[in-house]
């Protein structure tokens, strides 16, 4: 029997890891070491429950409950002067704990500080849209839906943004292979020519290192080129490389190698 390979994470994996290797941690420091951040954190704590908070790489990370996201971001924008939502997206932890981690990367231009608000949601749970607060979330949330399938409640136009509307599957999930599933592989053929064309066009060639010198359908041999589909015997004549036919072209000046100038100095 074939060995069972779990399908919940098909990402590339390190093929060798030292058994005793313990990955170091990026240092985290306490929020109280920074005045601005601790004031901000107090303001958030006063109204909402904060699960965890620390400073990493000069940016404060605050974990909140998923239901509070709208309120926290509103507070941040209106009272704490975090006027920009630079980025938001999700991280897939489905294989480990069946959860998504959502982060909102905020920027305050007044304080020159960046904060990352984070929260966990269950698989299948929707988040509250913050599109009313930050217009930029309009597209980020659509992208998040497109890539992870996380829906946002109260979003005006919850549709795919990067992939076509009739796409199936959520590409950034760890269960989705890099090279796409069956649907993705035949998407364009099915759409343009129909399923019956699959046999004629043939499957995609995904092996980047494959070269077959006897296959003139897919490969050309440099210097010995033949028309597509010819049987290759091995003694194809050499294709000479020239800009013009021998003897010149009708009504066109003959290209003369001797009398042409080669520009060596690009600054000429």
């Amino acid at each position: 029997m074939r060995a069972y390979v779990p399908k919940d994470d098909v990402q590339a994996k390190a093929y060798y890891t030292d058994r005793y290797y313990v990955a170091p941690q990026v240092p985290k420091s306490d929020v109280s070491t920074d005045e601005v951040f601790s004031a901000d954190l107090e303001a958030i704590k006063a109204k909402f429950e904060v699960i965890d908070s620390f400073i990493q790489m000069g940016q404060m990370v605050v974990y909140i409950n998923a239901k509070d996201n709208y309120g926290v971001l509103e507070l941040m924008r209106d009272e704490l002067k975090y006027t920009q939502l630079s980025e938001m997206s999700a991280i897939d932890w489905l294989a480990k704990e069946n959860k998504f981690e959502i982060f909102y990367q905020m920027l305050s231009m007044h304080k020159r500080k960046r904060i990352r608000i984070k929260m966990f949601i269950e698989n299948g749970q929707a988040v509250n849209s913050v599109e009313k607060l930050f217009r930029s979330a309009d597209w980020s949330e659509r992208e998040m839906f497109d890539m992870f399938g996380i829906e946002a409640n109260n979003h005006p136009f919850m549709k795919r943004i990067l992939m076509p509307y009739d796409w199936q599957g959520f590409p950034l999930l760890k269960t989705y292979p890099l090279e796409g599933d069956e649907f993705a592989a035949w998407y364009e053929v099915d759409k343009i020519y129909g399923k019956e064309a699959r046999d004629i066009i043939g499957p995609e060639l995904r092996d980047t290192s494959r070269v077959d010198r006897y296959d003139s359908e897919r490969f050309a041999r440099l210097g010995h080129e033949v028309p597509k589909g010819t049987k290759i015997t091995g003694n194809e004549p050499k294709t000479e490389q020239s800009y013009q036919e021998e003897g010149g072209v009708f009504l066109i000046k003959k290209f003369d190698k001797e009398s042409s100038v080669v520009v060596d100095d690009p600054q000429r």
Partner: protein
Amino acid sequence: MAQVTNRLTPFFENITFDRVDNELILNFGPQHPSAHGQLRLMLHLQQEQITKAHPDIGYLHRGMEKMAENMIYNEFMPTTDRMDYIASSSNNYGFALAVEKLIDVEVPRRAKVIRMMLLEINRLMSHLFWLATTALDIGAMTVFLFAFREREYLMDIIEGYCGARLTHAAIRIGGVPLDLQDGFIAQLKDFLDKLPQNIKDYEDLLDTNRVWLMRMEEVGTISTELALSWGCTGPMLRASGVAWDIRKEEPYELYDEVEFNVPYSDKGDNFARYRIYMEEMRESAKILYQTIDMYEETVKNNQTELMAHAPKYISAPKLDIMTQNYSLMQHFVLVTQGMRPPVGEVYVATESPKGELGFFINSQGGPYPYRLKLRAPSFWHTGILTDLLPGHYIPDVVSIIGTTNIVFGEVDR
């Protein structure tokens, strides 16, 4: 061979005449010469005026974030080139800086100077390209030809350094691979000395040009609130009255040692953006002059190191790899297995020519990033078209898309 017919039906649903409300729906793109790539816009029109705009993106979505999760860190570097392919090195730099923060290495001074030079050359290239294409869209063919001429000089300089015209991959995690080639400084100086006159030429052609003014002034005005709310950065934000430049506010590399101004305007219209691009070219030239001096200083002080020394993460210099056994082994491991940064998260923003280019990396201690999110400025600059276009007329669409300076490699990733 069997003959199978095309199953695509004629595409009429995008043009709807004679609706009761007299609305015309116009499809713009994705193959449109002035869409700067593959932007598709659905425009709802009342006569010539736009009532609703619906940008449709994703026609260049190539799955870079997914690729990053399946690649070792160094392998991903050439892919970042293809994001904002007008100024590739700035993407390389953004990624390199994020990883350097993660693994906590300090880049030697000479490499820093070279990086800054590359960044500013890229900024100049990007702005020149912007000027060329926007001018072409508006009909100023001369400016297009002029600006491309200057861009080619810069391309030559970059090509001499890294061997590629467009996709440079000129920056490595931990430094730069090469020292400047002979003649780099001379060529660059040559170019910079001519630049003010060139910029003046463009301005003479455009600043008082009636057509240019009519298509630029009071068109596409973005208010400060809208710009902030849409997450606009870079020239788009500075044209709307916020003088925010990451090089100044959160200095990285040696930007705190050089002197330059941050041009901004509170008009928010196309013309303001155009002026900002022109002024930024002058500022870049200023920075480049200063980096030339800094470079010569490092030569004088004999600071020849180009890569940071961190054996756990970064290969030794080529000479060591060729001569020393341990360096060779370490290089082999780093190439075949990849470096393993510590567990943690980092978000690093840099000022690319288009705006804030951010790299969010979540590392779980493996050789592949667990999650890499690319924060590309153009994504939001495209999004703002939804709110910006209504109320404008069809010809304004082209000039507005032009001044937003969007690049689709970056929007769709």
